[in-house]
C-alpha cells in the first residue's frame, strides 16, 4: 500500500514537472512559432542543414537536462529520459500550435516534418530550462556544481537561448547590410565589454572569489565570446543566411547576431 502511494506520488510529481516543461516550451518558443521566417525555413532550408540542426541539438539538450532540466531528477538515465521527454513536449507543442495557426505546408511529408522539427528543437530547449524559469524558487538549478567546461556550456546555452529568437529574422541580415565595418567593430567591442562586465559582476560559480578582472576576461569572456561567434555562425548556416556572402559580409552577420548571443551568454545564470 505504501509502495503504491509513493508510486502515485512519483507520477503526480512528474505530471507537474511535465506541466512546467510545456510552460517553458511555450514561453521560449512562442516568438519563434509566430515568426514567418521560421515557417518558410522549415520548407526552404537545405534538408541536410535541417537534419544537422536537429542532431546537433541533441547533446545541447542533454547538457541542459543535466544543468537545468524541468524535473529535480538527475543521473544518466533520468537526464536521457528528460531529454527525450523534452523533445516529445517540443514536437507536440509545435505541431499543435503550427496546425492551429494553419501555417503548416502539408504539400509534402518533408515540408511538414521540417517545419515542426525546426520549432520543436527550441521548444525542447525551453522545456529544459523550465525549472529555472517557472519554479519560482531562485535556488532551483544545478549550476552551483558546474565545472569550468560546465560554465562554458551554460554560456553557450544562454547564447543559444537568447539569440535563437532573433537568428531567423530578416532584420538580422538587414542590420548586417546596413552597418558599416566600424559599426560592426564597435558592436564586437560592446559585446565583449558587456559580456565581461555582466559575467564578472554576476560571478560564475567556478570562478575564484579573488579572481582578477583580467583572469576572468581570459577564462570566461574570451572563450564565451568565441562560443557566441561559433553559435551565431552555426545558426546562420542552418538558416542559409550566409550563403553566397563574402568573408566581410559573413563576419558582419555573425558579429550582429553574436551581440544578443553575448548578452544571453552573460545572463546565462538568470536564463538557464
Amino acid at each position, binding site marked *: 500500500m505504501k509502495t503504491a502511494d509513493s508510486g502515485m506520488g512519483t507520477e503526480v*510529481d512528474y505530471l507537474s514537472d511535465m506541466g512546467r516543461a510545456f510552460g517553458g516550451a511555450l514561453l521560449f518558443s512562442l516568438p519563434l512559432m509566430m515568426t514567418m521566417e521560421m515557417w*518558410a525555413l522549415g520548407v526552404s532550408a*537545405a534538408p541536410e542543414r535541417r537534419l544537422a540542426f536537429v*542532431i546537433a541539438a541533441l547533446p545541447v539538450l542533454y547538457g541542459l537536462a543535466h544543468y537545468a532540466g524541468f524535473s529535480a531528477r538527475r543521473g544518466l538515465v533520468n537526464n536521457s*529520459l528528460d531529454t*527525450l521527454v523534452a523533445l*516529445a513536449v517540443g514536437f507536440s507543442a509545435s505541431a499543435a500550435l503550427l496546425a492551429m495557426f494553419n501555417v503548416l505546408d502539408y504539400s509534402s511529408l*518533408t515540408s511538414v*516534418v521540417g517545419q515542426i522539427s525546426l520549432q520543436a528543437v527550441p521548444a525542447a530547449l525551453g522545456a529544459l530550462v523550465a525549472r529555472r524559469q517557472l519554479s519560482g524558487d531562485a*535556488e532551483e538549478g544545478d549550476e552551483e556544481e558546474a565545472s569550468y567546461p560546465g560554465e562554458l556550456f551554460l554560456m553557450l546555452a544562454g547564447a543559444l537561448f537568447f539569440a535563437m529568437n532573433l537568428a531567423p529574422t530578416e532584420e538580422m541580415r538587414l542590420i548586417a547590410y546596413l552597418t558599416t565595418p566600424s559599426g560592426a567593430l564597435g558592436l564586437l567591442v560592446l559585446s565583449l565589454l558587456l559580456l565581461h562586465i555582466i559575467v564578472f559582476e554576476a560571478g560564475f560559480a567556478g570562478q575564484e572569489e579573488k579572481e582578477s578582472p583580467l583572469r576572468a576576461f581570459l577564462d570566461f569572456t574570451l572563450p564565451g565570446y568565441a562560443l557566441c561567434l561559433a553559435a551565431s555562425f552555426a545558426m546562420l548556416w542552418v538558416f542559409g543566411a550566409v550563403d553566397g556572402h563574402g568573408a566581410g559580409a559573413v563576419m558582419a552577420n555573425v558579429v550582429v547576431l553574436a551581440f544578443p548571443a553575448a548578452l544571453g551568454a552573460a545572463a546565462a545564470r538568470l536564463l538557464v
Partner: protein
Amino acid sequence: MKMKSREKSVRGQLSWLQCVCAVLGLIVTAVAIAVLARSALADQRPPDLAIMSQTLRPVGAGWALEVRVVNSGDMTAAAVEIEGRVDGETSGATLDYIPGHGEKRATLVFSSAERPRARVRITGWSDP
C-alpha cells in the same frame, strides 16, 4: 539542501509517465531525423514545375482561373511566377514557395466578359 534531499528521494524510482513520454519523444525524434535524413541523402533534383489543372469560375471582376502547380523535383522553388494570356490581356500571380514533391494553387483573373481560353505558363522561379 531541500532540493538535494528531494533528489535523493526520487533517485532510483523512475516515473511510469516519464518512461512513456520518453519513448514517445524517442519515436517522434527518430521519425523526424529519418524523414530529414532521407531527403538530405537523396539525390536532389532541381525544381520541375508544371501546371496540372485549371478550373474557371465567374467572379465580379470577370473570370478567375485557378491553377494547380506541381513540383515534381526534390528541391524547393521560390517566387514562382505564373502568367496567363488571353487575346492581349495578361494576368499574373506569384507563389512564395513550392516544396519538392509538393503542390500549390494560384488564381489568375481575366476581365473578359466571355469565358476566356487562357494560355497559362510558368515564367520562372528562384532558389529559396
